[in-house]
């Protein structure tokens, strides 16, 4: 395979990798899935800012501002998604950011429409393939209104 980007300065903004912030929100120690997703997205050519465990909505927003992130990926295995995911979306909106939130992990199918209605861009279940993870993230970025 050819090395990406060659060795010259990129000149077109669009040709650079998507920057995704990955985190676990709240008290939730199951980070193996998040590590797999980090690797999957890296292998798909994305730049992953890995925040890991025990983040808050505010700490994730702060990281997104400093990193000028394109998208947030949250992994949730603590059954708190109905509370925490909408809180994340609200925190992003309150900060005036235009950053979609994608959720992965253990989310009962019945909860998916609730999360979507709360502004979550996409929800990925346990069976999601690497391709589905990558396309959920990249499509969420593509759907954004502004950049």
């Amino acid at each position, binding site marked *: 395979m050819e090395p990406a980007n060659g060795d010259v*300065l*990129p000149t077109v903004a669009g040709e650079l990798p998507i920057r995704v912030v990955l985190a676990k929100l709240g008290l939730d120690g199951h980070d193996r899935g998040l590590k797999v997703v980090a690797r999957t997205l890296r292998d798909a050519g994305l730049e992953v800012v890995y925040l890991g465990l025990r983040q808050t909505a505010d700490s994730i927003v702060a990281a997104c501002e400093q990193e000028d992130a394109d998208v947030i990926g949250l992994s949730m295995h603590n059954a708190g998604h109905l509370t925490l995911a909408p809180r994340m979306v609200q925190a992003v909106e309150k900060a005036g950011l235009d950053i979609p939130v994608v959720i992965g992990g253990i989310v009962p199918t019945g909860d998916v429409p609730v999360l979507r209605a709360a502004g979550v861009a996409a929800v990925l279940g346990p069976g999601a393939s690497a391709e589905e993870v990558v396309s959920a993230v990249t499509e969420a970025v593509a759907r954004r209104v502004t950049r």
Partner: protein
Amino acid sequence: MLSTRSPDELFAAARDGNRRALGRLLTMVERRDDNAGLVAERAHRDAGHARVVGITGAPGTGKSTITGRLAVVSGGDRPAVLAIDPSSPLTGGAILGDRIRMDDHVSGSAFIRSMATRGHAGGLAAAVPDAIRVLDAAGCDPVIVETVGVGQVEVSIAAAADTTVVVVTPGWGDAVQANKAGLLEVADVFAVNKADRPDARGARRDLELMLDLGHRGGWRAPVVLTTANRGEGIEELWAEIERHTAHLRESDELLRRRGRRHRDEVVNRIELGLRGRARQIIESRSGAAALGRVDRREISPGAAADMLLNSLTGGAGPES
């Protein structure tokens, strides 16, 4: 909308502490978009006030933990960290994981930006000094740049600081290794991290032995023992960094170093530009013609290069 604001407006906001504006300015210079030149000009004019510290060393030596701790003990109002991690050479993707080692200690006080090497050495060497100046011009101080000390480029980026700290751990090698590794030649200060492990003193002794053999510029790099995850030795390490800064200022070495860096940067930019032009010319009609003659063994690759180079430096643009 932030994306529609001019670089001047963004700088004004960034100086007032707006982190989003600062984040956007960094993206502009990193992505080299339409405003990148404007941002870089503006940044260069206003920069030069921050203390710029480079932290480098092998993977897993504790650079990020040290960096996060230093940002706190530095006593700067607005410390900033530029954390550089390698991109995959195959996919161009990257996992930027330095923040998880910092956030606990830094807890919102520092501005932290992760940057991927993106496989293009020359481009990174161009983007990092721009990013440092953007942070500096926005009023951040100190600016701490962290890179993995493998490969000449990463080392040279860390060395593009006023003060460069090289981090090693016990068991990293003996005095012979120390002399071999080009890494150690760029050190203004050494940190022997994970000093709670056996033989930290041995590691320090090996470094001191190497330093006994000679050092440059009237400054002998001090060796500090640190246990960064417990915060031990960090204040002493910062004190040595400050002492080095004072040494630079007193001896005019600061201006000399910055002058040398500016020169290196201009040379690097010229090389990048020429490389781009070289690519253009090789893809042009005259380039294809010259390559054809090389393939038919009418002229050597060297002769073809000379020919094309003449048209490049002769001012005439390549015909396409």
